[in-house]
């Protein structure tokens, strides 16, 4: 076969683009203080009609509201919402949901606890009543508390066995220390063991109240129907007289260059995660941060080009900007052979510094912005996808018009804005390595400052320094 040097035939050029019509979200506040957001089905010729309605209820209060000793409390509470109500046992809830062919989930992140539902249109009102029941009237049966807790502890063992997952947990600790985003959302085996039913009941009572909640309903119904459903189902929810929960801003430690190695000799490969304290979702530099991350991430992004395509060091490398209510985290990750760790760390750090030291070419930005636009368009292809985007906007205090404004804001980012973001962020970077330290730790220590090694049996994510107290 000959080297493909000359393009003998060029790909045909595109035609004129067709525009996306996103549904417009509208909102109302119920008399009890609950914010309700509704959006309609999109209409289009020859559209395959999907008879689905989605709902999402978000309360402000998640893992960042926990103390260190209570790590995992929000997640434990939301996991239990579907495990018993004043009217139904866990089995009865599961059977009712499966019998309706609905999907009902509840989970917590750092900033919020979220319950979500999708159901086919004819059964939606029935499913919505059940949704209301699990949100407002969970009973937290003692036996379920024990069962969910035991399962959560078992799941931790499973997630710690993956080098990549473990590296991300450690990265949270390295970035945030004892600040609210430092401890794992899922808690630790030690903290979970101490959480009792009273604390769970108190957490629910404190945060699950109409004036601390946002409800999103949309899809195969017009907004007036969605508002009527919300009023009928949640209109009689009364806010308690206790004052609303107060949010205290966090003060994470200043970023510092360091390398933390978790020695896991049985790991198949070594997870490499470079990270740095990032920005809040509402930060003015958010759009620049998203574009900078897109320059680094994706198959054609710089990290994957350097790590996989040019050097074959890994199956992939990517970057992530996690923006929350408070400044979150920037992460660049890959997974490599134990013998390639030093090379991979160098390549990842050089790639990040490269973006900080020179603005990207305008042509590179055109293509990387297109990836953001395409990803966003796909995320709103489904009804629950649109509900999810609106939920994040509502949670982080971003206007709902952002649904339509997001892509124009991304378009407005120029090369200098990207470089400014990179220069401000890709400095004092930390690196977490989870793998067989014996193979690479000497080489890393010889070439990098501030290297520490934690044997796996000394790792405790419940501690701000991630190390077991002797």
């Amino acid at each position, binding site marked *: 076969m000959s080297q493909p040097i000359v393009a003998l035939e060029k790909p045909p050029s595109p035609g004129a683009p067709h525009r996306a019509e996103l549904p417009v979200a509208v909102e109302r506040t119920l008399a009890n203080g609950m914010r309700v957001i509704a959006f309609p089905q999109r209409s289009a010729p020859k559209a395959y009609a999907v008879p689905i309605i989605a709902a999402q209820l978000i309360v402000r209060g998640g893992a960042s509201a926990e103390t260190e000793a209570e790590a995992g409390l929000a997640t434990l509470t939301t996991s239990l919402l579907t495990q018993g109500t004043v009217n139904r046992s866990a089995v009865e809830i599961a059977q009712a949901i499966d019998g309706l062919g609905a999907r009902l989930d509840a989970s917590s992140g750092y900033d919020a606890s979220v319950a979500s539902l999708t*159901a086919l249109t004819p059964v939606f009102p029935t499913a919505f009543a059940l949704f209301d029941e699990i949100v407002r009237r969970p009973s937290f049966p003692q036996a379920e508390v024990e069962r969910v807790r035991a399962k959560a502890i078992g799941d931790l063992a499973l997630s710690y066995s993956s080098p990549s997952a473990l590296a991300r947990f450690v990265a949270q600790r390295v970035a945030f220390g004892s600040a609210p985003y430092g401890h794992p959302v899922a808690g630790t085996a030690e903290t979970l063991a101490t959480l009792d039913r009273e604390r769970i009941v108190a957490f629910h009572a404190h945060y699950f109240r109409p004036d601390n909640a946002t409800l999103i309903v949309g899809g195969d119904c017009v907004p007036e129907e969605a508002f009527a459903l919300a009023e009928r189902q949640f209109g009689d929810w009364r806010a308690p007289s206790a004052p609303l929960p107060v949010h205290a801003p966090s003060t994470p430690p200043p970023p510092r260059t360091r390398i933390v190695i978790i020695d896991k000799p049985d790991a198949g490969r070594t997870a490499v995660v470079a990270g740095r304290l990032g920005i809040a979702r509402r930060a003015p530099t958010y759009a620049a941060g998203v574009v900078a991350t897109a320059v680094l991430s994706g198959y054609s992004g710089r990290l994957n080009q350097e790590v996989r395509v040019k050097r*074959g060091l890994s199956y992939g490398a990517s970057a992530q900007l996690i923006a929350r209510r408070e400044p979150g985290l920037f992460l660049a990750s890959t997974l490599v052979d134990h013998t390639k760790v030093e090379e991979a760390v160098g390549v990842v750090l050089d790639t990040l510094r490269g973006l900080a030291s020179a603005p990207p070419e305008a042509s590179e930005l055109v293509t990387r912005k297109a990836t953001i636009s395409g990803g966003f368009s796909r995320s709103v292809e489904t009804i629950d996808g649109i509900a999810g985007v609106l939920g994040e906007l509502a949670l982080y205090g971003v206007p709902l018009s952002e649904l339509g404004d997001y892509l124009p804001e991304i378009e407005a980012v120029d090369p200098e804005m990207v470089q400014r973001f990179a220069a401000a962020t890709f400095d004092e970077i930390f690196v977490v390595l989870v793998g067989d330290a014996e193979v690479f730790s000497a080489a890393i220590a010889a070439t990098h400052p501030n290297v520490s090694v934690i044997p796996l049996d000394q790792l405790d994510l419940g501690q701000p320094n991630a190390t077991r107290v002797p």
Partner: protein
Amino acid sequence: MTSTVSGAGIAVAPIDFTDRTLPNGLRVLLVEDHRVPSVAINVGYRVGGKDDPPGRSGFAHLFEHLMFKGTKNTRPETIDRLTEDIGGLNNAFTADDITNYYEVVPSNYLETLLWAEADRLGSLAVTEEHFHTERDVVIGEYDQRILAEPYGMLDELINREAFAVHPYRRGVIGDPENLRAATLDDVVAFHRTFYRPDNAVLVVVGDLDPAQANAWIDKYFGRVPKPAAPIPRVTAVEPPQTAERTYTYRAANVPLPAVEYAYHIPEWRHPDAPALDIVETLLGMGKSSRLYQSLVYRSRVATTAHANADLREQAGLFSLRAIASTGTPIEQVRAALDAEVERLHAELPEAGEMERVRTQIASSFVRSRQTYNNIAVALVRSAIERDDPGALNTDLDRYRAVTAADVQRVARKYLTLENRTTIDYLPL
């Protein structure tokens, strides 16, 4: 085509597709839908892990990677540039019977991607250097998915032990040693043998004008010649299993002991397939499923328990897999699985449970119709793995027709001890 009504009384519109075959043998399926200004393009080839050449286990999958490595007209990764760089996506997967390539792009780029897919069917040209780099990447994928991932090796072991004769026993990901032995000549031969229009199905779903799309398809795909040589097909037939096979494997990175049962079942086109899907759902879908209720929720002998009716083109496997909870001996997990199988043999499921299962299947079916690419992948798989894309529109009717007696019948027929391969997968 008629509208189908699911168990929950929901009218589900059929997927309205056109179906034609070009003179060179390429089958073309189109679905017009303008909800979102994008199109999903799928090109599925009737070649998968089972068709790997002798001594080249994993080759179909390695080849899938090489299809991104350039043609006479383009440099390597052109498909990535033409998709990702315009906000689209592309990927490919290799299964036992199919290798499928897909792109989702803004609809104004449809012609560009049709050209690119026809180009790599007609003129793939891979260099020695790219071949070596990509082979390392594939071996890296093996390390990542099979070695580093907890329980990653179990799927491989199940195929290897359950099939004595059929090449399904080699799995898809293959053997790193075989891959290291592969040469660029193998690549050329493989492309010539299997990548031909009469061995492929093209599906386009989304914001398209059918007349325009068909004209582009004729222009770019129509000029790829149909070779005269016959396409080699797997003719091996797995002999009926007559006694249980049991194995114990120990491996690093096994956090908790696991057990898997695999039973031989027929091919996807077989009339028993819908009943086997119903059994899978009844045992394994959702928290009201029998395995979850019994093993995870009530007796807590397992942290997870799954059922899978893995229906393939030529033969299938029905598997049950459970991961023990901390401190539970694996014998106890097996006993709990045995009790659930025994219950299927002994008792007819009640009407309410059958209704729940049908509603679950109908709902997940509707959910999966939300994106263009899901529709396209479903069409391409149905076209290749059961030679009948239209079967998608009658699947719900077939599920509705499955009775409680059918469930018991297929459980008694296939979920038997002598038809079973058992693997205990334990920590070192």
